[in-house]
């Protein structure tokens, strides 16, 4: 009597099918997991330190000395591909043309999110699995970064166009943790993201970059903080950054201290907390040795932590930053510098970017904003263990010298994008700005202390499970699988 075996072998505490409602829940999971699943190993331990928003204070951590810690990168990879991607695959399969619950609106939004979630990944590794994702293995080919970027542009344009038919409506509703289904905002998001991507490839494909950037701006990008994208959190899905700050592994960087103090930037207290028991803010340099980190002055309790809003106590309340309107202005400022039709001048966009960034943090006083925008002070030298000099000599006031203008724009974008480390690191690689400090030490011979880490190596797990594809990917990368090899868009 084996008649009931099939029923017995059905898992009672799992779902066995993705129904229409389930497809929406899967989209929600894809949104959250692409941010949360590997936040620490993906962003915090690499990009946040490479972008010098933060410096590491955990004595036994080495990635701030440019070590490409294999287990962490492995975790970063599998967190994304193992949890976020399968959820999104289910959404795309079911809502796409011919899918069980075909729905062009949902399909378009899921595609826009797909581009957002893949962008920082290709900016870490270069070639990554993209078009063949979800093929069931055992081999999953990698796409070249060029192919991926070009597909990003097409996907964003197609999706934004598809959403035109749904303007004024809501798709996904409250399932969507970013815009609560607001189609109009998703269209702006798609265009702004397309502008970001176009700018990233402006050195390697200048003509295409110009066309795409102009097309994106013409279609409408973020203009006010009402457009800002934040991922909502709650008690069951909290802000991964707030969760990680409990571990006391990073503190304000010396770069942030030099610039924020030099400009008397009112965002200092929005971003960071004073040293406990004092009113002073103190950062530290990136790349100290274990011994140097052991010095009392470099201790977590002697340096500036993040501001209260990023602490674990409010991990269920502080929404996670996805993309800000200020970034759109800084992108347009840079586009204008290049002579692209961005609908205004570089100076206007630069100042509008600062104003938008300030307002985002609740600094709306016009005098304060214009005082800052016209500021002539410069970053300061620090009285720290390394006797750190000033980061740069540029003031906030927009320079007449075109050579300085780009540095100003990117420096302000760096300040404004806080704490979005992977975008800041990508733009630092592309532009060389802001002029970040050399590391105090590097334990990675491929990327010495005064070199910029240009990418992260392919991960160990892939070398074991997908070896041939990795070998092919190194060919597509066009250089050795090292942290010193430049990505496709990263030209000197």
């Amino acid at each position, binding site marked *: 009597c084996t008649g009931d075996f*099939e029923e017995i072998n059905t898992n009672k*505490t799992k779902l066995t099918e993705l129904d229409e409602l389930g497809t929406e*829940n899967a989209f929600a999971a894809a949104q959250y997991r692409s941010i949360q699943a590997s936040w620490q190993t993906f962003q915090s331990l690499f990009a946040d330190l490479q972008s010098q928003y933060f410096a590491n204070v955990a004595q036994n951590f080495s990635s701030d000395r440019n070590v490409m810690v294999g287990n962490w990168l492995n975790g970063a*990879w599998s967190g994304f591909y*193992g*949890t976020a991607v399968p959820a999104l695959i289910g959404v795309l399969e079911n809502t796409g043309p011919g899918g069980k619950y075909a729905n062009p609106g949902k399909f378009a939004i899921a595609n826009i999110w797909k581009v957002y979630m893949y962008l920082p990944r290709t900016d870490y590794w270069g070639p990554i699995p993209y078009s*063949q994702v979800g093929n069931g293995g055992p081999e999953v080919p990698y796409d070249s970064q060029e192919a991926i970027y070009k597909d990003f542009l097409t996907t964003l344009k197609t999706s934004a166009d598809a959403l035109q038919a749904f303007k004024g409506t809501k798709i996904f509703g409250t399932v969507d943790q970013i815009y609560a289904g607001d189609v109009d905002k998703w269209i702006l998001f798609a265009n702004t993201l397309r502008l970001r991507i176009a700018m990233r490839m402006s050195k390697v494909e200048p003509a295409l970059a110009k066309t795409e950037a102009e097309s994106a701006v013409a279609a409408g990008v973020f203009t006010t903080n009402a457009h800002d994208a934040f991922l909502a959190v709650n008690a069951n899905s909290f802000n991964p950054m707030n969760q990680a700050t409990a571990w006391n592994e990073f503190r304000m960087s010396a770069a942030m201290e030099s610039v924020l103090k030099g400009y008397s930037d009112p965002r200092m207290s929005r971003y960071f907390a004073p040293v406990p028991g004092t009113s002073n803010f103190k950062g530290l340099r990136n790349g100290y040795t274990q011994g140097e980190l052991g010095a009392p002055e470099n201790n977590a309790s002697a340096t500036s932590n993040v501001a209260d809003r990023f602490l674990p106590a409010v991990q269920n309340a502080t929404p996670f930053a996805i993309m800000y309107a200020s970034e759109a202005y800084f992108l347009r400022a840079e586009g204008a510098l290049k002579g692209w039709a961005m609908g205004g001048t570089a100076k206007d966009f630069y100042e509008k970017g600062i104003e938008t960034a300030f307002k985002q943090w609740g600094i709306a006083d016009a005098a304060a904003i214009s005082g800052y925008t016209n500021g002539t002070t410069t970053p300061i030298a620090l009285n720290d263990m390394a006797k750190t000099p000033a980061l740069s000599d540029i003031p906030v006031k927009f320079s007449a010298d075109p050579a300085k203008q780009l540095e100003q724009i990117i420096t302000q974008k760096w300040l404004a994008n806080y704490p979005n480390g992977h975008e800041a690191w990508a733009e630092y690689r592309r532009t060389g700005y802001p002029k970040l400090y050399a590391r105090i030490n590097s334990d990675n011979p491929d990327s010495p202390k005064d070199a910029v880490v240009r990418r992260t190596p392919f991960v160990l797990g892939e070398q074991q499970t997908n070896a041939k594809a990795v070998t092919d990917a190194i060919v597509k990368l066009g250089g050795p699988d090292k942290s010193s090899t430049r990505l496709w868009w990263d030209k000197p």
Partner: protein
Amino acid sequence: QDRQVTGKVNDENGAGLPGANVLIKGTTRGTNTDAEGNFTLNMNGAATLIISSVGYTSKEVEVSANMTNVTVGMDADVRNLGEVVVTALGITKDQKTLSYATQMINTDNFAKARELNVANSLSGRVAGLDIVRSSSGVGGSSRVVLRGDRSITTNNQALIVVDGVPIDNTNFTPANANGGREGSDALSSINPDDIESINVLRGASATALYGSRAANGALLITTKKGAVRKGIGVSINSTFQAERAMVLQNFQNVYGQGVDGDKIQPNSEFSWGPKMEGQQVTAWGPDPANKGKTYAYSPNPDSYKDFYSTGTSIANSASLTAGNEKVQTYFSYTNTAAKGIVSNNKLGRHNFNLRLTSQITSKLSFDGKVTYLNEKVDNRQQTGEAFANLQRHILRLPRSISLEQAKDFEYIDPATGKLLQNYWNPGSNGGQNPYWIKNRVIALNTRDRIYGFTQLNYKLTNWFTLMGRAGYDKYIDKFEGKWYTNTYTIADFGDYQTQWRDNSELNLDLFGLISKQFGGDFRVEGTIGGNILKRDFINHETLNNQLNRDNLFVTTNARNSVTNRTVTQTRKQGIFASADFIWRDALTISASARNDWSSTLPKENQSYFFPSVGAAAVLTSLFNLPQGISFAKIRGSYALTGNDAEPYLLAQTYSYIAGGNTGYIVRDATKPFPGLKPELTTAQEVGLEAKFLNNRIGFDLTLYNSNSKNQLFRVNLSPASGWSNEYINAGNVRNRGIELTLNLVPVRTENFSWNFDLNYSRNENEVLKLSDRLATLTIASDFMNFVRAEEGKPLGQIYSRGFQRDAQGRVLVGTNGLPLVTSGTDVPLGTSRPTWTGGITNRLSYKGVNFSFLVSGRIGGVVTSFTNAVIYADGVTEETLEGRAGMVVPGVQADGSVNTVQTTAEKYWKFVGGRNTPIGEAFTYSASNIRMREMTLGYTIPQSVIGKSPFQNISLSLVGRNLFFIMNKAKGFDPELVAGSANTTVGLESFSLPPTRSIGVNLNLSF
């Protein structure tokens, strides 16, 4: 008036038994039998003779006044010689007819030299049995494997069968080198006082009747039952044991807390500071009460040793037996109270056992048993890399910090009133005050287990008996974890965890036992029957993640509560038949067949068939062999067994998870496997048993081979494929080896006897084939190692980072004076499994005094120590003394010149060791060790002294366990104390507890 009485003492085969002791009861008069078993005695009137011989149960024979000749047939003592043995399904068989190897274990010492887990009493006693224990302290589990590892990624542990009924031995939380907390196992649920005998069925042929549960061999435990006797028999057994940590690490006592050789840093976790010369230094830690205080910067040579207290274990057991011809009962109660060397690691256990046997009518008999266990274990130790593993923190204690200071592990913050941790590096990622972890990370476990069976036998005819049996095993495990707020990085805001597991297994057996004689020479023993197995498991757990109010441990105080409930059900059905065709008790041909249907397999593969065949020939009965050979038998067998799969692997599942506004659905990461097949193991073995010189020399030699194919294993997929892993059926793992047991009785006189038992086994494991897709499979990884299965090599290949070397094998050194190391963890360090294991037991007895000792060895294989990687980098051990002022790493520069670049021990060890990227090659050792496993010295008060008292037996024993290493190649640790009982943790040492030496006393009274 004396008369001469002549007699003969025969053994169980009717052959004369030499050397037997013949005594006239109530006198001191007696004699020994000669080489033919004959004796002569002078006696007066009627008398009772007491006849005894080692290996046989003593017998009393009435000799009436007119008798002048007497013949006595002796029965072999089952426990000593194993002539009648319990086999699969609880069927007893004549040992002579078996076509496969079994080993009866002498369990006499189990209740005396007691272990909290019976598994550990088996160590060193059984050929082919490999036992390693988890480093969990009191209440930990052990890994019991027979004849090597067959399955690459699934269970390799032997089946545990009690009185014919399998009991569940699932370890739900096998810890690995990355850390965890081990659970209980089945053998720890068995009370040593109740054990009558243990028979080990090593190979698949022996266990073939268990079908798909049989592949890993079995331990058949027979428990005591009541006997027909006069009055009530009472036995009391009391044991007290004390254990102390054996400190194997050599700590340095020269340099204190700090870095760079000259900097004293009060918040450093390292001991790379200056020499400790009693300097006054600033007190460490955030406790405001210590602000401004100083203390002497001096060595604390005994801080590690003194951290551990004396563990104790007290076991008291009482058993009652009574019985008449109709009904026999056995009842026992045992109370065990133990405390580990970490003083709040405690165990309290109650075992109740009631056995009832009854001959209801001449045809119908009943046997039934119920065993109840209640166990409470506090603070089973975390293992491995876990930040909550106490060992990690006590080992890392900077050498200038005294235990007295560290005991100041918490304080109330005057500003907030909060209870906070006092530690030298506040908020550290990876460091904690060991006393905080001991006292503020609390784990409470309880287990209630009830198992037993009822069995009815009905003798239909004189050759056919029908038997029905229902066996049930159920346990409920409860866990409570209380993590106090301010447990750095793992519970900064506290955590409260609860878990509740309900596991049950029901076995229903119905079978017919056939025993038919055909003529005088030929008989058939057979079995035909069926089995239904139902297993149900429910797991319910909650995690608070963070607490709203500090240190209030209730589930409603959760900031981010997660509740999880899983239900697992499997069903299996089997029908089986077996037959032994026996000719003159000398030649046996055996065959068995079983067909199973498992619910975990797809419909088309649900049914699978396992046959076995075998033969045994008693050469001494068939041929006229020389006098010196008292017994000789050859045997051989072939069997096919298997292993079904875990449930729910066939179809895609999705999990619903709290989050977002309406919940999340995620697709589970394992790719469905609709074509799943059962694993198959084919096994062959041949053996030779022989006894010489009237059984004073005996050996049993077995050669075996097994191939496990179609293995179900999980291989990682690139997660970009949409799934993180998938199951495949592939592989072929071969185990072949040799097992030898040797039993000698070098001396056997009236007053003195010496028994010598030796066991030896050597297993060659080789992964002949993995799959077409992959030649190596990573089965585990941690910060330091990868453990792999590789074609052409034994399972459990350990890989890590290693030194780069030139063509001549010299270490390459970089321009900074530090060795160059490989970038990946791809340097082979060796296999984790031993080449051979063995044990020698000597039992000496002189009148009432007996002395025994067991030496066991586990030779070959390697073990890597993550502990050493971390603590050498911390600078706490003697190994780090050399080169503090400067050293040159022996090796060559890239240009081939001898390296002359200076570095320091601090730079060297921090580079080579440490937590995140240690160079495993530098911390790999041979796992070979030989130890004095057990010693007992006992005294039984002679009958002549207690003859008139109500006591039948009073014996007192002194026992010692794990007394010392005769040889230990590992540096600073015990290579058999591994992180956990998972397949993959063998050979990986990671912050294990120190091994312990225990000494105790045992008193046994019966009346």
